[in-house]
Structures are given as C-alpha cells and as structure tokens.
C-alpha cells in the first residue's frame, strides 16, 4: 500500500506550497511516474477547495476508478496510476465539469478542470383535469447524445426541480412507469411517456439550457396514453454468471425505449416489456459482463401498432472476440529532424482501441480496450458483424501504419485489414491481428480561405498508396474554417475540401469512394509534402465550388 502512503504525504506537501493563483505550469513533481496532478478552478478562475475528482481508466478492465479531493488551493494529485489513458471529472453538488476538461489525460500530465454551475429546471406535471400528478419520473434526455442525464420524481404538488444540468438542448419527459424499485401504486405504469409540453417523442419540443441558467415553467400536461406490451421467451446460450438484459431500441439511435433484466437463466425464460409506444424497434437480448464469454441475440425487428406483441423468441448466440498485438516502430535517428520535439514519452498502454461495427454508427459505447506493455490486446463480447478499428493515439508523434491479419493460404500475403475491415461471425474469434504504429507523425493545421461547412480530406498522391486506407484522413472544419489533422504518415498528399454531407463513415472505407476522391483531388491539385515530425501551421485551403 505504498500508493496511499504517498498520497497522504503529497497532499500535505502540496498544501504547504501556496497557490494563491491558478497554476499555469505543471510543478516539477508532476513528472513523477504514474501521477496525474491538476487543479480545479471555478468559473471565476479561482481555485475550488474540497471538490471531488474522479479518475477513471479508459478501456482498462477491472481497474476501479479512483477518487481524490482538492486541497485549499484547488490542487489534487492521483498517484500509483498504471500507464494508460484516464478520464477526469471534477464535481461539487450542482456543478459540472466544463467540456474542455472532458478529454483523455495521461500519467505525468497536469490537468486543469473548470467547474461551472449547471442549469436548473423546474415545472409541474398535471393530468387532463389540471390536477397535479405526484411521483411522476421526469427525465432529461440530451438531444444530441440521446442519453438520459438526470431524473427526478415530482412531489405531492406535481412539481419537479432538476439541477446541475450541463448546458445543451434537451427533451423533457414524464415517465409513469413504476420503473425500478418503487412499490407505490400508480395509475400510469402501463403508459407511454409524455414529452414536454404535451407531446409524443416525435413532436417533443426541445428545451435549451445554459450553465447557471434557471428555467421555470417547464410544465407537462400528461397525456395518459396507454402503451403496449412486448413479450416472448429467450432460448440458446442462456447459462452464465451475468444477467440477461432485454432491450427494445429505436433503430436509428440504438437508445432503449424499454428494457428489463432476466436473472435466473433457465431454459426458455420468459420476458415482458411494458409501456411501449407504437413504432418500429429492434429487440435484443444480451448477456455481457467483464471477461466472461457472453452471448447476444440478433436484433429482431418488432413493430408495435395498436396491440401487444407476444411470442417473440430471442435466441442467444455466443459472442465473438478480436485479439492481436500492437507494435511500435521507432524512427531512425537519421530520419528524425533535430527540430522535432516530443512533449511527452507516450507508451503503448495509453493507446485506446475501439471496435466499431462498420454499418452501425449508432452505438453510444462501442467496445474499447488498451494493449498491455508488450502490446497484446483483446476485445471480448463483440456482436457478429463487420468491424473497423478506431485508435486514439496518445502522442502527436505517432501514426497508424498498418492493420494486418495473417496471410491467407491462397495469396500468401498478409491481409490488409485496414482496407477490408474484419468480419466476425457468431462465436468466432479473430486472433493474430497485427497493428503497426510508427513514430515521426506529421500534422497539418490550416484554414479555408472562405469559411463554409466543409469536410477536409487528405489523399495519398502515390498510385501504389491508392488503396492504403490509413493514408487517407478527413475532418470537418470548424465554423471559422480552421481545421487540424494529426497523426499523419510522412508523405505526399492532395488536400481537398468538400461540401459537408451527412455521411458518418469515412469516405476512404469504400473503394469506389476512394477512386472518386482521388479523381476530384487530382483535378483540384492542391498538394502538400509532409516530412517526418513536420508541424504545418496556417495552411491556406480553397474550397472548390462546383
């Protein structure tokens, strides 16, 4: 228990240093291995004492989150962290962490987190006669991320008050399901939710709230519309330690309209979901937890149209996995320009690997892992599908060079999995994936000559690179026309700006699209040569209008 001993002592020593002002530079001891130091500031820029700071490892399984509090100078220090990426969240009742603090931090870094007062919202829920409804569960759902951020029940006067709300646009709903663990009798538990002001989900009026703002009169006239039941039974791979979650999801967002747990994994276990509005949904049963090999059913399309849906059978099939090794290639000393400055020595364990189903952009939390120090990684409990791997690289000096699978017998050449993606069938495990990360990455920061909604693309010039998907890069330009592309392999690129489309999938994943892109880029003919380690700034880019 050395770590905690150190914590006690460092808190003492930190408080003996006087920080009358916000700390701008990391104190030298922040360089200590396995330590993240930082400071929590208020909206006024002054240090906040006794704020809670939670530190959670990204992708590291079985790593409990850590918690510290700030001292009188708003300073905090977490020691004994394994190499990896961490998310930090400062909290005080009614306050939220400002969005710029919600990024990955690495041991050795200094984190400045700002606490801002969240918004507060209040209103009254009444029935058709104008009488207040007590015990109604009010939920706020972020319009963009479509996930619930807060909930609170109405009191005996039908009044609710929700506070500590991050700035954003929300839909507000009153849910009468006696969801969870209430034994209270309610007239509404078979009902569908009513959205503010007295709407269904499709006609809900979003509410915008700012930090520190207090919104009153967000009253809901409850519609008291009865929902339907969706029921059936589970079969297949039911046995396991983990419970089975059955959820009914909106196909577009993947968010659940209703969900229920089945704990006793008996053969042919029955399930029932209540209060479902008319609509089209995907019904899925999943048994996933930690390292146990889980199981899931294929999504079953369910249409609820004015009546209960019964007799749905969901068959659970074993899930798949992906495993392999990450290699880090050093840059030859002769190739590294003397001006190349590396801010921090990143390590492999700080690389975040995410497996995304290619066709499926809706999953809010795709499976994530980090490699071990020698570079081994494994992603368990993947649904069958066609996967692409996403990487968050911990150093600006790194770029992704190759993702390969072992050679197939016919060709004797390794499979370029960055180009093809990885197809996983139910219960299948793809092993021996090799991921090569190289040092000496370049970056390109620039601005469009006329600011307009655009997507900026980099396309490799050399013909033999035409199918090297990892050599393609793209990003949406900010509203002022600026853009930054990082983790770029040194080489020659065309730079192309295209009008913004609704596509959510990188253009380079599709061979026809790649060809179109190259064709356009060739015509536009804006070229740039990036040297190892080069940091191009103030690049000027013209948007071609057709």
């Amino acid at each position, binding site marked *: *228990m050395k770590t*905690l*001993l150190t*914590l*006690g002592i460092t808190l003492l020593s930190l408080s003996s240093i006087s920080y009358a002002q916000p700390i701008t530079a990391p104190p030298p001891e922040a360089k200590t291995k396995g330590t993240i130091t930082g400071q929590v500031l208020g909206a006024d820029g002054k240090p906040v004492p*006794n*704020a*809670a700071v939670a530190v959670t490892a990204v992708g590291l399984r*079985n*790593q*409990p989150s*850590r*918690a*510290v*509090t700030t001292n009188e100078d708003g300073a905090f220090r977490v020691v004994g962290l394994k190499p990896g990426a961490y998310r930090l969240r400062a909290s*005080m*009742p*009614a306050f939220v962490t400002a969005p710029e603090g919600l990024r990955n931090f690495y041991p050795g870094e200094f984190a400045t987190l700002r606490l801002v007062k969240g918004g*507060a919202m209040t209103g009254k829920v009444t029935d058709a006669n104008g009488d207040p409804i*007590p*015990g109604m569960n009010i939920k706020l759902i972020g319009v963009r991320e479509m996930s619930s951020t807060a909930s*609170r*029940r109405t*009191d*005996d006067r039908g009044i609710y*008050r929700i*506070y*500590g709300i991050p700035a954003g646009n929300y839909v507000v709903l009153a849910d009468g399901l*006696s969801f*969870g*663990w*209430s*034994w*209270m*009798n*309610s*007239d509404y*538990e078979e009902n569908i939710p009513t959205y503010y002001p007295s709407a269904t989900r499709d006609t809900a009026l979003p509410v915008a709230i700012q930090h520190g703002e207090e919104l009153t009169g967000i009253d809901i006239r409850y519609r008291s519309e009865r929902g339907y039941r969706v029921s059936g039974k589970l079969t297949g791979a039911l046995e396991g*330690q983990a419970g089975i979650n059955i959820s009914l999801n909106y196909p577009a967002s993947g968010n659940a309209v209703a969900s*229920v747990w089945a*704990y*006793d994994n*008996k*053969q042919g276990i029955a399930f029932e979901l209540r209060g479902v509005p008319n609509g089209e949904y995907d019904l899925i049963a999943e048994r996933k937890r*930690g390292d146990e090999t889980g199981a899931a059913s294929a999504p079953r399309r369910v249409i609820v149209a004015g009546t209960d849906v019964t007799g749905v059978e969901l068959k659970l099939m074993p899930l798949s996995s992906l495993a392999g090794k990450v290699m880090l290639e050093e840059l030859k000393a002769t190739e590294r320009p003397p001006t190349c400055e590396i801010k921090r020595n990143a390590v492999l364990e700080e690389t975040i690997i995410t497996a995304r189903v290619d066709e499926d952009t809706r999953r809010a939390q795709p499976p994530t892992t980090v490699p071990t120090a020698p570079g081994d990684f494994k992603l368990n409990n993947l649904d069958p599908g066609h996967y692409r791997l996403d990487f968050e690289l911990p150093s600006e000096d790194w770029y992704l060079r190759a993702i390969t699978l072992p050679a197939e017998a016919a060709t004797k050449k390794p499979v370029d999995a960055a180009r093809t993606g990885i197809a996983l069938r139910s219960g299948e495990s793809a092993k021996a994936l090799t991921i090569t990360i190289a040092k000496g990455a370049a970056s390109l920061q620039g601005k469009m000559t006329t600011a307009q909604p655009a997507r900026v693309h980099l396309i490799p010039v050399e013909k033999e690179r035409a199918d090297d998907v990892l050599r393609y890069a793209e990003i949406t330009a900010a509203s002022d026309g600026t853009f930054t592309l990082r983790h770029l392999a040194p080489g020659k690129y065309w730079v192309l700006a295209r009008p913004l489309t609704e596509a959510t999938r990188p253009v380079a994943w599709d061979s026809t699209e790649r060809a179109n892109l190259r064709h356009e880029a060739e015509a536009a003919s804006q070229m740039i040569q990036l040297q190892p380690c080069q940091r191009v700034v103030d690049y000027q880019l013209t948007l071609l209008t057709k």
Partner: protein
Amino acid sequence: MKVSIIAAFLLAFVGQAQPTNEPNTASISGRVTLNGKPAKHIHVTLVPGPYGSPDTPGRQKMKTDDEGRYQFKRLAAGRYGLIAASYLNTSVEFLTSATKPFKVCTLAADEELKDFDLALVRGGVLTGRVTDTDGNPVIATEVQLAFVDGQSKRQRFPAFQTNEDMFVTDDRGVYRLFGLPPGRYLVSVGVKVGPGEYTFGSTRGYYKRTYHPNVADEAQATVIEVKAEEEATGIDLRVAPMEKTYQASGRIVDAETNQPIAGSMYDFGIVEGEKLRSVYMGVSADEQGQFYLRGLSPSRYGVTASGGLTANYFSDPTLFEITDKDIEGLELKLQRGATINGSAVIEGTSDPTMLAKLNAATITAENTSYTKIAHVYPSRAKIQANGRFNFAGFRPGQIRFDLGSELQGFSILRVEHNGAELRDSLAVKSGEQLNNVRIVIAAANGIVRGTVNFVGGLLPNESQVKIELRRGNLISRVTEMDSNKRFVLPSIADGEYELVARLFASSNNTVSSSSPPQRIRVTNGTTPDVTLTLNVR
C-alpha cells in the same frame, strides 16, 4: 450503492412463490378505507413473497369497487404482501408494522381469507431548508426521518417503501417529505458517529448529525407533529462545516502463495453489535487484488473476500476501525473452501411429473456457524438433470439445507452422508471435500397453522417474529409471523415436531425472547391449530 442493495433484495427474495401446477384455489379479500371512508377505485397490489420487486412474477394489481372492496382469487398457497398506499396516501399501520410497507398473510391451499382490511389516510407533508453556518444551501444531502413510537422510543423511518428522491435536498437546500403517516417526527441531516453508524463513498467529507433546528443531541431535537393532510413548514436545519472522511485499502491474496487470484471479490460491511452487517457485496478487486474503500466516516468496519462467483475460496472477515486517518495494508487471505457434492432424490414416488420437478430446482445451504458472525444469504445450487448438486466455497461450520421455492409442496425428509442419516446439521471442516451427501425429499402437503399470543407488554415496533419448526436437533422450517399474528407453515411431512416462536429485535437481529417449545404431531397432513405464547418483557 443502490445497486448492491437491490442485488441483496434479489438474492433474498426473488422467486419465493413460484406458480406451481397445483390448482390455485386460495383467495384474499377485504376492504380499503381512506380517512375512514370506503376508498373506491384505488389500486391494491398483491406481491408474492412478499417483499418482491415490481417485476416479481405473480405480482397482481386491481382496483377497488364502489364500496372499496378488493378480492384476489385463484391464488396458490404461499405468503403474500398487500399494499394500497400511493405517493399521497399511506397505511395507518405503517409506523407500527414489522412488515412495512406490506400487510402480510400466508395462505394455505383452498384457504379463503376474508376481511383482510387495509386502512389508509392522506399523508402529511414536512418541508424545510438545510443551510451551513454561512447560510449557503446544503445541496444533495439526505434528510433522515425518525419517528417517536407509542412507547416514546425513537425509530428510524424506513425510506425503502417510498419516493427516495424526496429525502434529498435540491440546489436551494430545500427538501419536501410527503405522504407521511400521521405521527411525531424528528428530522436530521448528516452522519452519527458511533458503533454501527457510518457513511461511505463521499470523499468530500460528511456533516455530523444535526437535528432540527440545529442541535447535535437527539434528546434536544424538536419533535414535529405531522397530521394527516397537513403541512409542517419551516423545518429548517443548520449544519456545522464538513468533517473529513478517510480511505481504507488493502489486498486480497491466496493464503498459500501470497499472490493475487484473478477474479477475486470483496464484501464490505459495518460492525453492528457483535456481527458484521453487509453494506455491499461482490465488488471486484483489481488485477493485483487491490481494493479501495473511500469516504469512510469514523466507525468499525469489516471486509471479507471471495474468489469470485464460482471459485472455491473464502476468507475470514478483517475488521478495522477508522478514527482520524487513512488505513492501508489490510490483507485478506483467501483460503480454499469446503465443497459439498451430492444428490437429491424424491422418495415415495415414481411419478415422472413429480420427479421432473427436481430438475433445475434449487437447494440452499446456510452456514449457521458463520451467520453468528455476519449476516449472509444462503448459497444456492441447482439440481442437475441427474439429480446431482455441487456447492463450493464454504467456511468450516454447520451447514443447514433447505429447498428452493420451486419445490413448494415438498419437504426435506432427511439428509444422509455416506449412507448414514445425520442427527444434526452437516459439519464441514476447513477445505474439506464432502461427497456422497444425499438429500431425501418427499412430497409433503401437511400444513401447520397457529397464532402467537403476546404477554408481558406490547410487541416492540419493527420487531420480527419468526416461527421455527424443529425436528430433533434440526430446524426443518422457519417462517415469519403474518400481520394478523397468525402463521402458516405449508409443505410439512407427517411426523413429530417442535414449534418455537422467537422475537427478533430489529436493531441487531438477535433473539430477544423465545416461546416455550410446543410439541406437535402432523398426521395425514393435518394437526390442530397451535397457540404459542411469547413473553415480550
């Protein structure tokens, strides 16, 4: 830690009364009143078990008729809880009942229970604001409610049955408690410091217990009278600055190798009297076996380790006391547990539908030696298709078997080890592998019913009365007394037994008095009604 509390409920209660294939012929009926008048068209919910969750199979709901009457028909034999309270209306008996929020009854097959009435009143409201010494609102802090009972004793108001949101202050420091049973209340915030009192999880610190208006001593607290339908306002509280909380941390290792074991877990508890009471259970340690317990207020705590859900390990509890500093280096040594392997057989039938009932049913095993040290739930094992069952991870001690709720209508006739009938519960030694345990089950449709008479005073509020059915040295069945002071023990095989009623004081779950044992004989499934007399003093 709401999640683990829920988990505890599930472990304890889910599936206590499963539908059986027997014809369901029992019924319950009665009347619901609100403020003394018939409560028409309000919901009455019936939960088997009782104490089930809203998802409990067999939960039923109906609305009362114009005269406030309800009736649930076609019920299987078993224990049921009834509730008619809502967010606004509360049960008149709420504060005095030991089975709150339910009114509980036990039905035998064919039983027609009538006049099981439920009395409601419109609840009262208690509201105020919590501030610190600078006048700033105290946000997201839980308000505690205690009530003064008929014997002028102060009792904790149980919050589980109601809207837990209302106990938490908002960003203005305001709280509003509603639907309260009429009574005399004490309102406080913060944490008591002393044996059995604790808080955990808040690294920012805690407030010391403060009673309305601003006193630390419970004896000086202002008692607030809450009347039905009325509102008590301005019940403000002022708290002193936050006190510091502490951390405890340690490591779970294999007692033999001193190395961490993958998948090891720990349970965290509070020392209450002589026992360890679980606060949360089944939390994973990290890969090095490290665990951290954060935000602890000064008190005596305990941690116990297990090898995970399936591994055959256990540890002795490690107790520690938080006073004014962090504690580190706690060590939990995992020892190899004892295993019990055996088979379950049904005697006296070759009917395949009867025999099939064993398949996938469960047997429970409780280490009665360990339950003297800690409150734990019995282990469960499924009976496989060939009748075999396997238990692992036992501490040395005395093991008592029981049947899972799927085996209603059955009873354990005897337990054998290596062909010999056990005279007492099964003893397991450290790390022992006990094979050839045979649990002989028989269809048993006998019913033992009775009433408990209380002498020597009033039954203390919130106390529990349990009735034990014993055969020789073995406890063959335990049940709780119903709300109407009756008890029913179904699924009893013919034979001679002893019945004992025991009074458990709610605060520490220890027996405070027992009735003289009563001998009974069950013949052809019946026995005359039994009256047990329990001296409360």
